[in-house]
C-alpha cells in the first residue's frame, strides 16, 4: 500500500515515562467489546455507534444490590431514568428488580410503558404539572414533594381523590458538601422540612411514606452520606415519636461516582472514586446505629444511576482526518462530537484505538465533526498516530450521554445492546432526515405556491 505523505515536522522531544521497550504507549488496542468486534459493529450499524453491554449492566446492578443488601436488610434500587432512559436499558434494570425514579411527566410515561407498576415509580423533581401529579396519584406512585407550591397543589388535588396520594419529602441538608444542593426540596436545618412534614401529616389528605435527600453528584467522599443518613434517620425518628407517623423508607438518592476521571483531576478516577461498597458501608452502618429495632429498620432506597450504567456504555467512532494546528500540535478529527459525547465537558474520557497502531505516540487534540469551536473532546491526549479511517473506542459513556445528546448539526447515531452472549441488538435506530422532518410544520405561506398568489389589485 502506498504510504500517505505527511509533511515533516520538527517538534520538541517529549520522551514521556520510559519503560524497557522505550517510550512505548500504554494504550492497548480495544478490538472487541464484550466479544463483538468493533469493526463488525461499525460495519453493520454505521459509525459512530453507541454500544451497551447487557452483561455489564446486570453485573453492576447485582454488585450494587449485593453491596447494600449484605449490609442492610431492606434495600431497593430505583433506576434513575434521566441517566439513561433507553427502554432496553430500563428494562434490563427492571428485570433485575429495580424500581423507577423519574423526574418528569415524560419519564413517568416511559416508566409506565416499560411495565413498571405505579407504586414502584418514585416521582421526583421540581417541575411536575397538575396533570402529572394527578396521574401519579391515580397510579399510586410516590410523589417526592419539592416545594410548598407543589404541596399546596397536591393538597388541593387530593380532595377529589378516593385514595390518599402517597408522598415523600425531598429534604436538602448540610452534609458538609460544597456547594450545598439547597435548590431541591425543603431545607432541613432551617425547619422548612419539618414544617412541610407537619403540614402533610396534619392535613390528613396525604400519606407520608418516605424521606428523600440527594446530597450531590459524583461524590468522591463517603462521609457526607453518613451525615445525610444520620440526619434523615433522626428526622424519621421525629416523625414517629412526635407525629406518630412511621416512615416507611429513607431515600438516600444517588450521586455515586463512576470510575471516569474528572477534568482537572490529578489521579485517574479508578484510583480516586470510592467503590459502592464503601458508600454502602457508611450508610448501612449509620442506619444500624440510628436506634431502630432490627425488624423495624426503614426500607433504604437508592437512586443510583451513573455508577450502574457508565462503564457499560461505549462509543465507537472513526477518524475523519488528522491535521496540525498553528502551534504544531497534532489534531485528530473524529466523526462524533460533543453533541453526542456530552460528558466530555466533565470527564477526560479514556479513548482507545480499535485496531493495530504504531508504537509512536503523540499528544493530540481530539475534535468532533461539528463546525463549531466548542466541539473538542479531549484537549490533549497521548495517543498513537491515528489515520483517517482508523476506529476508536470511547469508554464509560453509558451515563447521561444517551439522554443529554443533541441533534445538532449532525444526526444522532444508532445504539446497540450486546446481550449476555455478545450478540448485538439494535435498541435505537439512527436518526434520519425523515424522522426530524416529521415533527416540523411549515406555515402555508412558506410552501411553494401551487397557484400564483393573487397580486393585490392596484389602482391603475
Amino acid at each position, binding site marked *: 500500500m502506498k504510504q500517505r505523505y505527511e509533511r515533516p515536522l520538527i517538534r520538541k522531544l517529549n520522551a514521556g515515562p520510559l519503560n524497557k521497550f522505550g517510550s512505548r504507549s500504554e494504550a492497548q488496542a480495544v478490538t472487541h467489546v464484550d466479544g463483538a468486534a468493533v469493526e463488525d459493529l461499525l460495519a453493520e450499524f454505521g459509525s459512530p455507534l453507541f454500544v451497551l453491554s447487557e452483561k455489564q449492566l*446486570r*453485573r453492576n446492578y*447485582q*454488585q450494587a444490590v*449485593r453491596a447494600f*443488601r*449484605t*449490609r*442492610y*436488610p*431492606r434495600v*431497593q434500587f430505583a433506576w434513575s431514568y434521566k441517566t439513561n432512559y433507553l427502554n432496553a436499558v430500563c428494562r434490563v434494570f427492571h428485570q433485575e428488580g429495580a424500581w423507577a425514579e423519574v423526574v418528569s411527566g415524560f419519564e413517568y410515561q416511559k416508566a409506565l410503558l416499560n411495565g413498571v*407498576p405505579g*407504586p*414502584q415509580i418514585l416521582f421526583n423533581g421540581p417541575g411536575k404539572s397538575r396533570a402529572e401529579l394527578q396521574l401519579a396519584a391515580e397510579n*399510586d406512585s410516590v410523589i417526592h414533594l419539592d416545594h410548598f407550591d407543589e404541596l399546596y397543589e397536591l393538597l388541593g388535588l387530593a380532595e377529589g381523590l378516593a385514595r390518599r396520594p402517597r408522598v415523600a419529602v425531598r429534604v436538602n441538608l448540610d452534609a458538609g458538601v460544597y456547594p450545598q444542593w439547597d435548590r431541591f426540596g425543603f431545607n432541613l436545618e432551617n425547619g422548612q422540612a419539618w414544617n412541610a412534614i407537619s403540614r402533610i401529616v396534619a392535613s390528613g389528605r396525604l400519606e407520608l*411514606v418516605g424521606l428523600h435527600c440527594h446530597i450531590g453528584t459524583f461524590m468522591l467522599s463517603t462521609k457526607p452520606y453518613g451525615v445525610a443518613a444520620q440526619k434523615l434517620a433522626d428526622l424519621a425518628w421525629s416523625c414517629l415519636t412526635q407525629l406518630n407517623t412511621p416512615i*416507611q*423508607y429513607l431515600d438516600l438518592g444517588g450521586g455515586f461516582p463512576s470510575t471516569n476521571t474528572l477534568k482537572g483531576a490529578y489521579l485517574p478516577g479508578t484510583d480516586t472514586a470510592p467503590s459502592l461498597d464503601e458508600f454502602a*458501608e457508611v450508610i*448501612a452502618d449509620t442506619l*444500624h446505629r440510628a436506634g431502630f*429495632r*432490627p*425488624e423495624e429498620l426503614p*426500607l433504604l432506597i437508592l437512586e443510583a444511576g451513573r455508577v450502574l450504567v457508565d462503564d457499560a456504555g461505549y462509543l465507537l467512532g472513526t477518524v475523519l482526518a488528522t491535521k496540525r494546528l498553528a502551534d504544531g500540535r497534532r489534531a485528530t478529527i473524529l466523526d462524533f462530537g460533543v453533541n453526542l459525547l456530552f460528558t466530555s465537558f466533565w470527564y477526560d474520557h479514556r479513548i482507545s484505538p480499535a485496531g493495530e497502531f504504531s508504537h509512536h505516540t503523540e499528544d493530540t487534540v481530539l475534535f468532533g465533526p461539528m463546525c463549531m469551536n466548542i466541539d473538542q473532546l479531549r484537549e490533549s491526549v497521548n495517543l498513537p498516530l491515528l489515520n483517517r479511517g482508523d476506529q476508536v473506542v470511547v469508554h464509560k459513556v453509558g451515563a447521561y450521554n444517551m439522554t443529554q445528546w443533541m441533534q445538532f448539526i449532525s444526526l444522532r447515531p444508532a445504539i446497540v445492546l450486546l446481550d449476555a452472549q455478545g450478540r448485538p441488538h439494535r435498541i435505537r435506530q439512527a436518526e434520519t432526515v425523515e424522522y426530524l422532518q416529521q415533527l416540523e410544520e411549515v406555515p402555508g405561506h412558506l410552501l411553494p405556491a401551487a397557484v400564483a398568489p393573487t397580486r393585490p389589485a392596484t389602482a391603475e
Partner: protein
Amino acid sequence: MPSTPANTPLRLLALAVLRSYSLIFFSQHRGFAALLLLLSFANPGAGAAGLTAALLAAGGAWLLGFDREVLKTGAYSFNALLVGLALGTFYEPGWAYGLVLLVGALLALLLTVALGGWLGPRGLPPLSVPFLGVIWLLTPAAEQFHALALNERGIYWLNEMYAVGGEPLLQLIHWLNGWQLPLMPDTYLRALSSVFFQDSPLVGLLMALGLLWHSRIAFSLSVVAFLGAYAFGMATGVYQDGAINHYILGANYIMAAVAVGGVFVIPSAASYLWALLSVPVTAVLVAGLGSLLARLGLPAFSLPFCLTSQLFLYVLLLRVDSRWLPLTPIQRYSPERNLYAFTNDRERLQSQLYVHLSLPFLGEWQVTQGYDGAPTHQGEWAQALDFMLLDAEGRSYRGAGQNLADFYCYNKPVLAPADGTVVEVVSHIDDNPVGQVNTRQNWGNTVVLQHAPGLYSKVSHLRPHSSPVKPGDLVRRGELLGACGNSGRSPEPHLHFQVQATPYIGSRTLAYPLAYYLSGPAVRTFQVPAEGESVQNLPLNPLLRLAFELPPGYRLDVCDADNPAAPPQRWEVFTDAYNKTYLYCHRTGAVAYFERSLAAFSFTAFYGDESSWLYLFYRAAYRVLLSYLPGPELPDTFPLTLLRSPVLKWAQDFAAPFVRFVHPTFALRYHGADDPYHPRRLQLSSRAELRYFGRTRVLQTTDIELVHGALAGLRVQLPHQSSPLRLVCQPVA
C-alpha cells in the same frame, strides 16, 4: 373458655357420666358411650347400679370441686361405674346393697383421685386399679354384711328376660342362642362382654361394633391381642382340650394390648409388636395372679391388664432414646387422633421444639462447608456451617483476590441469630493475609451467645476489633456482633457458625436447625442448609405480620357479603391456661387453636362445628409464612382428621399405623401486593386437597384478602357449591 351453655353443671355431669362408659375403652366417643350405656342394661340390675354409681361419683367430684375438665372426660367416675356394675351383677338389690353401692362409688372416686395424684406425676394412669381396690375391700367385708344377698339372677336370667320383654324377647334370645358361632369369634365376643361382667356373644358383638365405630386401630389391636392370646394359650396348653374359658382368656389381653399398642403409645408397626409382646405377659399374670388371689378369696378381674399396661408404659418412660415407640404426648382419647396429630405435629410444629435461629448475616450467602464438611467440619466439630458471598460467576472476590478487601464477604456485618446474652468475646486476633492460616488461635475472633439454658451459638473468624458487644450484653436478633474477617484458621474471609450446648470456644458442636430461610427461591423451615446452597433470611412483611398478629381480645365480625341481613359470626381471640391462643366463634362454639412465631402463623387444631365459617378459615389459612413470596406455592400437610369420606377414612385408619395412602395437603400462594415492602393490600390463595392413589380431590379453595394490616375478607369455593361464599371481616372495636 368463655362461659357457654356447654358448661352448665347439668350438662357437665351428663357428659361425665356418659363418657365414664366409653372411657373404659379409652374413648370419648359419645355414640360408643351411649351404646355401652345401653349394653350395660342387658343386665338391668347391673346397668342401673353402674349408672347410679357413676352419677354418684361424678356428682361427688363436682361437689368436692375437682377439675371440671378432667371430670368431663369421665376419668373420675368410670371406676365407680365399674364398681356399680360389679356390685349390681353379684348382689341382690336392697337397702344394705344401696348403702354398699354408695360407699363403693365414693370410695372409687376417692381412690381414683388419690391414686391419680400419686401416679400422675410419674406419668402413669391409674387405669382401673381404684375399682380393684374397692372390690377387694368390699368383697371380704361383704361376707360380714349379712343383709347383703348374693344375686342368683345370673343363673335364672331367662326368667328375668321373660319378666322384662315377655314372649317376644324370649324368642329372640332363643333365636340368638340358636346361633352357633365358631369357637374363636364366640370366645372373643364373650371376652369383650366380660368387661361389663356379662357373658353374651350378642353384647360382645355390639361392643365390638362400637369399638370399631370408635376406633379402627383399637379394634384391630383387640383382634390381634385375642389371636395372640389364643395362640399362646394353645402353645402352652393353659386351656386343655380346646376348652377355652373366656373368663380366663378374658378381656385383660384385649384391654392391655389396646392400652400399650394404641392409647399410651403412638400406634405403629412397632406398637403392634409391643402389644403382641404384652399378651404372654398378661397371660402369665392372669394365670399366676388368678390362683394367688383365689387363695385370698379375691377376684383378679382387671388386675393383669392394669399391671401389664403400667409395666409396659413405665419402662418406655425410663428410656433414653425414644425414636421407637414414642409415647402419646397429649391424650386425645382415640388412637387415630393420637397418631394423626403426632405425625402432623412432628412435621409441622417443630417451631415449638426449637429456639428460632436466623442466619447470622444479611443478604444471600452460600454455604461453602456444611455439616460433616471435608476440610475442617470433622469429629466433634462436624455440625458447623461456613458461609461466603459469591457473585454470579461463582467467585468470592473481585479483582485479583490478593487483598482481604477484595473478598465480597470481608467486613460484612455478622448478626445475632436470635435474642441472647453475650457470654464470650474474642476480638484481638489479627486477620491472616489471604492464603495463610493461624492454627494456634484456630477459632480467631469469636462471639458466643447464650439463647437458652444449654443452647449457645458461636460465630468465628471475625475481623479484629469489629465486635461492638462485650460479655454480659443482651442482644436482640439481628443486632450486630461484628464483621466477617479472616482471623484464626481461615485462609480466606468466611463466616463460621455453629450451635453448641456449652459456652466455651472450642465446644463440640450440636446439630440444630435454622428456623426459616430461603434456599434460592425455596422456603425451608427447621432444616440445616447443605453445602452449596445459597441461603438468606426470609424478608418479613409488615402487612402479613400485622394481619396475623391476632392478639388476645381481638374480635372480628364475619358477614356473608351476599346476604348482609344474616347475622355476623363473631370470632374472638382467647388464651387458655397453657398460654395457647385460639380463635373462638361465638355463634357456633367452634375453636381453632393457632400459633404465631416471628415468621409464621399456623393453625394447630380445630374443635367443633365443621359447618362454621371458622372451619373454612382454619382450612384456608392453615399455615401462612409472614413473608411476601410471590411465585411458588408453599405446601403443608393437614392432619388426616380432615378426611370425610367414611370408606376412605376407615380404610386409612386400619392401615394408618403401617402406611399412609391418603394425603390431605395444603398449598398457599401469595400475590397481588401493591408494594412488596409495605403493601397495603395483598392476597393469599390457598387450596386444601386430598391426594390418594394418584388422584387429587380439591376440598376448598380460598382467596384471603388482606387490607391495611387486617384480614378483610375471604372468598371460599367449596367443590359442591356453584358460587363462592364471600365473607367480609370487620374488626370490632
